C-alpha cells in the first residue's frame, strides 16, 4: 500500500483542494486552500489536475513518512523542510524515497505551506470537495485536522522522468509572491462611512491581530466610523469582503467565512490578492489600495498568465 504516515501533525495541518462550491445556499462555506496559487503551482509541478488535494500546514509544520517512492512539491511559505538532514528546495519537483520522512519547521515569514504529492490522496469527496472545514466537520480526514499516527493512503501516478522535473522561475515567484498592499474595490456600505474613515482606510496601515485564522483576519488600526449607525440586514458575503463591526476595527473574511454576515462592508479585496490573505500572519502590517474594476481585472489576467507551464523551467 502507498501511504503517508503522520509522525507529527504540526500546529494545524488539513487536507485542502481548491474548495467546495455550489452549496453556499445551504450555509456551506467554500473552505479550500487559503493560498490557491501555491496549491495550483504545486500540482502543476507534479502534473496533477490543479484541484488535487494536498496537505496545508499552518505556522509550524509536521513530519510525514512515505511508504514508497513519490514525487512531491512543497510550495507556499518556507517552513525549512528537510529530508534525511538535507534541506529541501521549495517550488520544485523533488523525489522522496520509500521510508524517508519530510520534516517541516516553523515559518519564518508567511503562514501556510503545501505538501503536494503526485497522485491522489484517498479521501472522500463531500459535496464535491476533499477540503477540510474543521468547524463543521466536513471533508478531509473525518472532517478534522491531521493527528499523530494518521495514515493517508494515496493512489500514485506513473513516476515523472527526471528530465521532466521542473522549478518555478524566480521572476515568476517574485511576481506571484504574497502582497502586504492589498488592492480593494468599494463594497455595499462604502458610502455610509465618513470621509475621514475612508481617508484613514486607504492611507493607514493595519496590523493583523492574533485572533486571525481561516475564517477571517482581524485587524488593528485607526477606527472606522460610519455617518449613520443603522443596523444592516444580514446579507451574503464572500472571501475578501472587509466588514467593519461596531468597534470600527475591520475584519477581512477568509475562505472559511460564514456564508452571510450582518456587519457593514467597506470594501472587497480583488481576486488577484485573495491568495495573499492566506499568507498574512499576526503582527504583519498591511495597507489598502483602492482600484477600479478594470484594474482588478487586469491584475487577475496578468496573474493568471503566470500560473501555467510557461512559468516552469527545467532543472
Amino acid at each position, binding site marked *: 500500500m502507498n501511504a503517508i504516515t503522520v509522525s507529527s501533525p504540526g500546529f494545524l495541518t488539513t487536507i485542502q483542494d481548491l474548495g467546495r462550491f455550489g452549496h453556499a445556499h445551504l450555509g456551506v*462555506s467554500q473552505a479550500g486552500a487559503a493560498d490557491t496559487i501555491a496549491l495550483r503551482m504545486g500540482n502543476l509541478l507534479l502534473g496533477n489536475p490543479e484541484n488535487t488535494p494536498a496537505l496545508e500546514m499552518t505556522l509550524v509544520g509536521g513530519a510525514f513518512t512515505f511508504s514508497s517512492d513519490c514525487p512531491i512539491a512543497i510550495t507556499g511559505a518556507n517552513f525549512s523542510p528537510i529530508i534525511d538532514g538535507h534541506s529541501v528546495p521549495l517550488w520544485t519537483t523533488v523525489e522522496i524515497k520509500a521510508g524517508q520522512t519530510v520534516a517541516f519547521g516553523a515559518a519564518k515569514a508567511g503562514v501556510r505551506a503545501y505538501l503536494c504529492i503526485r497522485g491522489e490522496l484517498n479521501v472522500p469527496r463531500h459535496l464535491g470537495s476533499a477540503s477540510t472545514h474543521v468547524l463543521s466537520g466536513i471533508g478531509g480526514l473525518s472532517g478534522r485536522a491531521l493527528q499523530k499516527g494518521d495514515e493517508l493512503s494515496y493512489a500514485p501516478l506513473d513516476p515523472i522522468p527526471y528530465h521532466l522535473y521542473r522549478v518555478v522561475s524566480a521572476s515568476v515567484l517574485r511576481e506571484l509572491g504574497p502582497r502586504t498592499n492589498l488592492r480593494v474595490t468599494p463594497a455595499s456600505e462604502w458610502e455610509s462611512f465618513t470621509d475621514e474613515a475612508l481617508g484613514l482606510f486607504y492611507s493607514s496601515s493595519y496590523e493583523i491581530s492574533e485572533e486571525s485564522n481561516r475564517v477571517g483576519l482581524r485587524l488593528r488600526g485607526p477606527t472606522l466610523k460610519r455617518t449613520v449607525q443603522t443596523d444592516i440586514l444580514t446579507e451574503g458575503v464572500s472571501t475578501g469582503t472587509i466588514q467593519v463591526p461596531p468597534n470600527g476595527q475591520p475584519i477581512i473574511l477568509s475562505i472559511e467565512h460564514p456564508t452571510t454576515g450582518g456587519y457593514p462592508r467597506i470594501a472587497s479585496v480583488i481576486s488577484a490578492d485573495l491568495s495573499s490573505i492566506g499568507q498574512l500572519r499576526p503582527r504583519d502590517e498591511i495597507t489598502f489600495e483602492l482600484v477600479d474594476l478594470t484594474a482588478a481585472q487586469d491584475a487577475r489576467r496578468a496573474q493568471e498568465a503566470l500560473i501555467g507551464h510557461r512559468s516552469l523551467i527545467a532543472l
Partner: protein
Amino acid sequence: MHRPDYPQLLIASDHSLLVRFGTEIDLSLHQSVRRLTHSLLSEKPRWFTNIHPAYASVLVTFDPRITELPEIRRRISRHLEQLHSVELPQPRCVEVPVVYGGEFGPDLRDVASHCRLSVEEVIQMHVSDHYLVYFLGFSPGFAYMGGLSPLLATPRLAAPRTRVPAGSVAIGGKQTGIYPVVSPGGWRIIGRTPLGLFDPKRDPPTHLQIGDEVMFRQISEEEFRSFFSSPDRSDRSELT
C-alpha cells in the same frame, strides 16, 4: 426622500454581484429571494460558483477566470425578468422535536425572566407558533427563521459561547434558530433537538430548506435519548 428602485444589481466585488430586493424582513421580498435562488440553482451548466440568499437579497459569486462581471449581470437580469414565472416547490411543513430546558436549554430560565413569563409559558408559546425559514446561512444548515412571538424576543448574550452543542434551539433578538453543527454562538439556548440537521452525505445535506414552515414539538429527555437508539435516526418528520 427618493426610494431606490428595486431590485438593485450591486457590484459587491470583482467576483460577486448582489441582487437586493429591499432592506427589510418581509414576506414578499422573501418570495422574490426564493424565486431567484430557485431559478439560478436550476441553471445547468452553472456559470456561478455560489448563491447566497438572505432575507431580502441574493449574492451571486463567480469565478472571474471563467466569466466576467458584464456577462454575469446580463445573465442575472434575464433571471430577474422571468422571476414572476418561476414555479416554486410547495412549501413543506417540518416538525422539529425539542427537549426544553435543563442541561439542553441552559438559558430557558433567563429567557423566561427577561420576558416576565413562566418557563412553561415560554415553551407553550414557542411550540404554538409556525416559523418560516427565510434562508440558510452563517454555518451549514443554520436556518434563519421568522415568526417568533415578540413576547419571546430576548437580547443575545453579552459574550458569545465558544461552543454551542449541535441541535441547540435558541432565541437571538426577534429570531429563533437551531445550531446544526457545534459552533460558537451568542443566542440564548432554550432547548435541543435530536434531529441531525446537517449531514454532507445526505441529499439534500440539510434537514431544513429555504421556504420551509417549521413547528416545534416538545419531547421528554427519554424521547430525546431514545431517538439516538432508533434504527433510522435521520428519519424526516415531515407533515405534508
